């Protein structure tokens, strides 16, 4: 079969998703992270761990590990790029819609990827808060 015949190929994922899936940025662990957020989507089993390094209220480094579908991996990757350099306030404003936009949209049925990553980010920011004020925990 000739691939030329697939001329009407309709990518389900945006070029940006495919780029980040193929070459995910900032994969891995930050050993001395200031904040860690871990989320698992109980329905589909996708799991993300987000590691943040924070200096003076600014996210200076971010890394991730994601077991998940293409969308989850791509959104994870984009998110690490997105949050770097952002203040904690700014980071707190990032929700699943922002993340969807950041990968030029997610196809129907894949919006859970944005939810997973947004939740992991929230969890990481929460973790930072908890660590900063351990006695109020």
């Amino acid at each position: 079969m000739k691939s030329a015949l697939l001329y009407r190929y309709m990518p389900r994922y945006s070029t940006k998703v495919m780029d980040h899936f193929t070459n995910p940025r900032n994969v891995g662990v930050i050993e001395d992270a200031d904040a860690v957020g871990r989320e698992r989507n109980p329905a589909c089993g996708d799991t993300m761990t987000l590691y943040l390094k924070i200096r003076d209220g600014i996210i200076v480094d971010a890394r991730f590990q994601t077991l998940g579908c293409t969308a989850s991996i791509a959104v994870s990757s984009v998110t690490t790029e997105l949050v770097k350099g952002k203040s904690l306030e700014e980071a707190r404003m990032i929700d699943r819609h922002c993340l969807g936009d950041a990968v030029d949209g997610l196809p129907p049925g894949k919006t859970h990827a944005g939810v997973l990553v947004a939740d992991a980010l929230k969890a990481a920011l929460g973790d930072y808060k908890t660590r900063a004020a351990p006695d109020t925990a």
Partner: protein
Amino acid sequence: MKDYIYLDHAATTPVDPRVVEAMLPYFTERFGNPSGVYTLSQSSHGAMEEARETVADVLGCSPGEVIFTGGASEADNAAIKGGAFAMRREGNHLITSAIEHHAVLHSCQALDDYGFETTYLDVDAAGLISPEDAAEAVTDRTVLVTIMLANNEVGTIEPVADISRAVKERAWALGRDIIVHTDAAQAGGVLDLNVDRLEVDMLTLAAHKFYGPKGVGILYIRDGTPFTPQQHGGSQEKNRRAGTENIPLIVGAAEALRLAVEEQGTNNEHCTSLRDRLIDGLVGRVEGAYLNGHRTLRLPNNANFCFDGVAGESVLLGLDMEGIAASSGSACTSGSMDPSHVLTAMGVSAERAVGSLRLTVGKSNDGEEIDKVLEVLPRIIQRLREVSGAAQPVG
């Protein structure tokens, strides 16, 4: 080397060019509606009845017991609802398995609204249904049992004749008769489809699983089996399925079945060898790789795995980028969020099911293609495990 390696034959197959050739005259030239009285209609009608005879030969039944439908889903719906409604006065209990195709499961569920109840038989770790369990499930309200001949996800071949015998004997002991249906959609042109040897009253086939066209199914209904038609209208198919008969596709379905059965030996041998090459090349070589389904009682074309530390959908995308088409029973692939009900029923954990991958070979695949997969797939898994942090195989 071809550009594209297609390993999703359980989902659908390309139409054999000989089948296309057989169908073509019926679109433009011999296009008559078979219910007319004129020559053109009689020509269509004759072609359709010839097709019915071809199918009947394969099933070992009489042509009048063969109905053409719009697909296997329609055939399953018709068999289950049509059988159940016809037996309504005799009872309201159905028996099926937990690993049936959704066309069967959801047909059974749809009958809940009409006072029917269904027992979903468990399977063992290999996906096998036990005839004893089936017999035990029979009550004095049971009217229909539907068990697939081969599972579409993990390829396990079920002992349908044994199950049929067991449930019928139990039913007879209770002084009743029950209908046994089998969804043989995955078995067309691959396994023995003789309805007497299978001991079934109804049987479903889908042409597009054996190099025939999509949109045409076959439903066998043994003479004398109670059946309430589900699609109403004209008197086509002896009043069992209304609607203008789809002559080109009916001709195509029969020709595809004829060819598949004729070449069954060669194809099965060919597929089995490719399948085993895949299984042997992955299980035991890639760490954290497990075979799903039965090692030997499985379809010649089916290899189904779980890989720890990756999500099936990502593997599929990775494979697609290398020009390889495969499928996964993981959630996320279908847009549905549930992991495969088949893997779940076989006791595969949700965590592990995330990493499921189905590779189903076909007659046009060759060893070179399999070698390419054996080279590419472990690399993809390795790369994804690095992303997931499970580069070390998960215990």
